């Protein structure tokens, strides 16, 4: 047994260490909280400012606005220029998403349910457009489109947007596919289903939420696309992002704050739908 004063020293030492740990825990909590708050503010303030500015009734940008109202929204919905741009964006995004789905879903089956040589390289190649810098990609595509006479055509824009949208569906669907055991298909086939029937009735059916989630993300990607259109689009082809760019190039039109607000709302709703779909798929 240790002498009493030794034991006291040991106890005091332990108490000191416990206090230090306590203090450092509190500092970490406080510091962590501060960082999170700053990060959240940095992310949200610009968005909040845009939303606030969209309710300015001024004809020009003023901060803070001199008067409040729905003038920007009114302009947006009454001038044909913006409506046409939105319509073109939709007209490009919808077929691009459909095409992407038609290519990506069979590709997911080929990559995950076949013995094709180099199928994993195929998967990597499929997501290239997510990795290559967009402007570099666009320049290369410009070269190709010139030769194929696709430059400044509607078909060309649909193809370019398909290339961009495709990886979204590929990635989301592949992730879902990896959670579907092969045994389900084997069980279906033993029970009397052909391979096609097992795929369509079981695997594809289980992939539908993921495919829809991927399609929503693909739509957003195409709808927001602002680089390809500048390289590959012609004079008459103004999508919504291009219209926004053009409007800021020659003097600032406060209408874009209304557009931005609506876009944010629209995208958030779509993202929520995508998230919900992926959850139901699991």
């Amino acid at each position: 047994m240790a002498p009493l004063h030794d034991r006291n020293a040991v106890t005091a030492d332990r108490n000191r260490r416990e206090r230090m740990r306590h203090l450092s825990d509190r500092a970490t909590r406080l510091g962590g909280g501060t960082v999170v708050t700053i990060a959240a503010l940095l992310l949200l303030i610009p968005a909040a400012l845009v939303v606030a500015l969209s309710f300015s009734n001024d004809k020009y940008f003023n901060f803070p606005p001199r008067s409040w109202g729905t003038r920007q929204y009114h302009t947006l919905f009454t001038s044909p220029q913006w409506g046409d741009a939105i319509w073109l964006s939709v007209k490009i995004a919808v077929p691009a998403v459909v095409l992407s789905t038609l290519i990506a879903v069979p590709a997911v089956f080929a990559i995950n349910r076949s013995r094709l040589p180099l199928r994993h390289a195929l998967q990597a190649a499929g997501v290239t457009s997510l990795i290559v810098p967009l402007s570099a990609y666009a320049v290369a595509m410009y070269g190709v489109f010139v030769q194929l006479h696709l430059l400044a055509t509607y078909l060309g824009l649909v193809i370019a947007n398909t290339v961009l949208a495709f990886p979204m569906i590929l990635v989301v669907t592949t992730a879902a596919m990896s959670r579907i055991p092969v045994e389900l298909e084997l069980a279906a086939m033993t029970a009397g289903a052909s391979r096609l029937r097992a795929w369509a009735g079981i695997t594809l059916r289980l992939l539908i939420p993921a495919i829809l989630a991927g399609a929503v993300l693909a739509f957003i990607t195409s709808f927001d696309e602002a680089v390809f259109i500048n390289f590959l689009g012609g004079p008459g082809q103004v999508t919504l992002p291009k219209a926004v760019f053009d409007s800021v190039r020659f003097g600032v039109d406060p209408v874009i704050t209304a557009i931005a607000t609506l876009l944010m709302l629209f995208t958030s709703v779509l993202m929520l739908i995508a998230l919900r779909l992926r959850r139901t798929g699991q």
Partner: protein
Amino acid sequence: MTDEIALDIQEVSKAFGATNALERVTLQVHRGEFLTLLGPSGSGKTTLLRMIVGFESPTAGRILLGGRDISGLSPADRSAGMVFQQYALFPHMTVADNIAYGLKLRRWPRAEQRERVGEMLDLVRLEGYEARYPRQLSGGQQQRVALARALAYDPEIILMDEPLGALDRALRIEMEQVIRRIHRDLEATVVYVTHDQQEALALSDRIAIMRDGRLQCVDTPEELYYRPASSFVASFFASSNLLPVTLVERLGPDSARVRYGQDELSCRVAGEIAGPVQLAVRRRSLRREPSPNCLVVRGTVAETLLFGDEREVILDVPDAGRVVALIAAHAAADLAVGQPVELYVPPEETVLVTDVDAGAPGTAGDADAPLQPDALAVGP
């Protein structure tokens, strides 16, 4: 069980790349028989099952079901029902729809489908669960639905791949009873894969023991347990100890005299004897009390473990390595680690076996089936 042959596996081999997963397996299963493929992992038992059901195709040989060559058929055309270890129920379908899946494909009229689903649910004791989804069921219930799904369209053969592997101990025993009862009631032909010899003992009419892609032997549980044909069967199936002995003389087709250390004794012979031999002694055959002409095993206690009514006593025996005995707990209470001890084995409980591990090791590999079954693969 009848004499009619339901499943006839003829000289079937399977190679995955350069490794032979299965080598010239020949095996017959009778109608109404419960046959278990038993073996350690990598022995080829699952590969063989997957070839019967059609997920893999044999590299050589033929498989006949009800006299029909099914080797090249798609799983859909084979009239087999399959139960998987992980249940493999369709998560987006109710219990009733899962069970009716094979009936729908066979275009049964709706009313008959409903009636059959009801019968199947009665059979697996899940009345009232029609509208549930698989995720709302326990593991044992899911496996019972899987069993009902496989049985519903009355296939010629039921194949089960470690169906109890994902269940806990209590549920396993309950499911064993369900499977046994269903096999008896329906007189179904069952091929069952497991690596658990207790399960094989409890369920099977016959057991096929596999090792390194080869069929070691096929026999009833009693024969395999009490009269093993080789050292591998003795140690793997009955967890027998293998003692080094030399053959003195054969006394007839099923007995022989052997020498163990300085002692000579008579023992039984079950299989072919060729080359080096060993004496198989089951763990419960080692006793504290001597009997006439008994085998004496001398060693020191290395470890003892209480199992309840019995105590496992592990001995270090010179020349034989570790010998494991299961002795009534009260008779082994005095045994302490490090203590020298003599245990006695009645001669009629010893079996002379060929030491199959003394020769060259098997060439067949530990090849596991590839992730991509033949049945699902596209392309070459």
